[in-house]
């Protein structure tokens, strides 16, 4: 019973029930229409037949005389079938025909009538039964009565009981039809509901497992490629994203613990040094300056972390607007050009002009700054040649591609993906200042704009490539 209630509560079953009801109503309307149409058609056919026979009788009477007419009426009367014939005298009294009890009113006044009557010579199917008296049978007659030229009365008609029988057949087939439809819909609905329920059940079970902590569980996807598969695919993508975010959160907590605690410890040590009794004024001042510098670095790291978190969480409410990206890239290259030059690094730019992109100006600017600062740290060839940074922006049809390449020692293949993670600093760069967040932010900015960020081999050196879809 519980199961039934559960099945009834599913929208599929309710939908099926609604459809069955609608089918039945339509079936009734359709059958009624067909029945009505056929009865109208039959009626018209009968009236036409009656009129035609009457014209024939009139012609026989005019051309061949009353005897021929009487003979014709008699002949037709004796034939089995629904035909009704009555020939009376001028007063309307019965002379010939297969019906005797035609009401006088019908016989005397020409016109079209319908009346109940006793049929002495019943329909053909009874006639053949020998040895029995012809059964009297209730009939309904539709007739036309006329007055002949010689004053005699002729009534021609049809028995319409047969027509009633036809209606009964329609009704019967209608009932069978309805029962069929109901049965069929119930079975089809039941099967559909069961199938749908089963698939929902799997999703339900998966989500229960996930809620109980097994985040790697996924909803199975069939090859049917229907709405359920679309739903399952979306759910799985969502779960992937959640798992990834949780993983990221875990990494961040771990990293924050390590990478923020270290400078905090240094900060504390500096403050203690300043407080030490034996410290001279100069040492004290120096220690305090170190404290400020250290806390500034901490704030920077903190800001970078917050920024990455906010960028990764999705578009900032300031949304994206159409900006001239060529200008930003050129600006940042110009901003860093002199700095690089002072360090003996040449910055070469190849920037396509007037490229626009729907983007956040500050974030793209910050990403460019990070890329350039990064390149400047590493653009020092090991073979003693002078450093060089190539900044390029190109518009390749549907992609806008920004690359910052240096000719430094490069990054080993294995580490190329890893450097995009938060706080990852390769051994070689441990000695350099930096938080290990620069490339993570670039990566987050790329993703926010629907683009990609990758590190390629510049042979020698590193080429950082940002690619955005140009709408």
């Amino acid at each position: 019973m519980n199961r039934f209630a559960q099945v009834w509560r599913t929208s599929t079953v309710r939908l099926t029930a609604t459809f069955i009801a609608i089918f039945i109503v339509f079936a009734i309307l359709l059958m009624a229409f067909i029945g009505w149409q056929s009865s109208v058609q039959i009626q018209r056919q009968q009236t036409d037949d009656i009129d035609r026979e009457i014209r024939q009788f009139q012609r026989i009477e005019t051309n061949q005389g009353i005897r021929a007419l009487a003979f014709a009426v008699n002949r037709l009367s004796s034939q089995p079938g629904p035909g009704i014939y009555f020939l009376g005298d001028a007063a309307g009294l019965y002379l010939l025909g297969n019906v005797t009890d035609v009401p006088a009113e019908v016989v005397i006044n020409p016109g079209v009538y319908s009346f109940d009557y006793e049929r002495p010579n019943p329909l053909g199917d009874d006639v053949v039964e020998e040895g029995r008296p012809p059964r009297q049978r209730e009939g309904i007659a539709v007739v036309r009565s006329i007055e002949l030229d010689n004053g005699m009365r002729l009534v021609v008609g049809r028995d319409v009981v047969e027509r009633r029988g036809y209606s009964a057949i329609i009704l019967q087939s209608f009932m069978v039809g309805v029962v069929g439809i109901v049965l069929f819909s119930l079975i089809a609905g039941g099967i559909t509901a069961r199938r749908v329920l089963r698939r929902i059940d799997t999703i339900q079970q998966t989500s229960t497992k996930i809620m109980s902590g097994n985040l790697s569980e996924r909803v199975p996807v069939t090859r049917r490629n229907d709405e359920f598969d679309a739903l399952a695919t979306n759910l799985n993508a969502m779960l992937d994203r959640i798992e990834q975010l949780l993983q990221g959160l875990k990494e961040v907590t771990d990293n924050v613990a390590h990478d923020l605690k270290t400078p905090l410890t240094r900060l504390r040590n500096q403050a203690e040094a300043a407080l030490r009794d034996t410290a001279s004024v100069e040492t004290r001042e120096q220690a305090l300056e170190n404290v400020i510098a250290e806390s500034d670095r901490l704030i920077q790291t903190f800001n970078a972390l917050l920024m990455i978190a906010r960028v990764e969480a999705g578009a900032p409410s300031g949304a994206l607007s159409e900006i001239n990206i060529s200008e930003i890239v050129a600006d940042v290259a110009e901003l860093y050009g002199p700095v690089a030059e002072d360090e003996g690094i040449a910055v070469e730019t190849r920037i396509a002009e007037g490229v626009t992109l729907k983007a956040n100006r500050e974030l793209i600017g910050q990403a460019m700054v990070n890329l350039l600062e990064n390149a400047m740290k590493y653009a020092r060839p090991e073979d003693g040649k002078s450093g060089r940074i190539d900044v390029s922006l190109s518009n390749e049809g549907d992609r806008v591609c920004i690359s910052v390449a240096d000719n430094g020692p490069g990054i080993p293949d294995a580490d190329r993906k890893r450097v995009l993670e938060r706080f990852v600093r390769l051994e070689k760069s441990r000695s350099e200042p930096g938080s290990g967040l620069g490339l993570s932010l670039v990566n987050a900015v790329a993703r926010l704009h629907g683009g990609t960020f990758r590190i390629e081999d510049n042979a020698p050196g590193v080429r950082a490539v940002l690619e955005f879809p140009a709408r």
Partner: protein
Amino acid sequence: MKILLIEDDREAASYLVQALDEAGHVTHHAADGETGYAMASGMDYDVLIVDRMLPRRDGLSIVESLRAEDDKTPVLILSALGEVDDRVTGLRAGGDDYLTKPYAFTELLARVEVLARRSSPAEAATSYTVGGLSLDRLSRKVERDGENILLQPREFRLLEYLMKNAGKVVTRTMLLENVWDYHFDPQTNVIDVHMSRLRSKIDKGHANPLLHTVRGAGYMIRE
């Protein structure tokens, strides 16, 4: 200079009041939004320093109300919210400058002093002169003791900003914001490099330098 500080953090406020006092400014303090608004509209101040999140009435609504009353007193908004959009919202509400917590006091002081100048008419001047150095904003000409100095467009804007605020300290972030129009903090000494190039163009070969580095704060141009 008369300054009103609207800040609910007592410790931060007392430190700021003291530090501003040491810098020679008279500072009043309001600890919540309503009091701050009443004081700001009741008295004449040169600069308002308004924290964004305040009890009883938030900082942005104070600024909005003052602006609606046609009060043009320069406002520096302080906020822990430092994202790009937060800054835009703050400036749109009528703030003249936006400073993210935590900040260095020198940064705050430099910004407050530059803001106060803003209400004076020097803003609209077409040329600036400091010592023998003159800059014409219309013809884009820079001369030192009658000698023409050729500057890159960016160097010109850098010098223009410094001269507009002659005698005041301008910080590196202020330069980055006003000359390059970016609000991020660079990790390297980008601004210093640009300043040293500018310095070599205007001060080289002259006995008395005009462009001064203010230790721990920024730069200043003065005779």
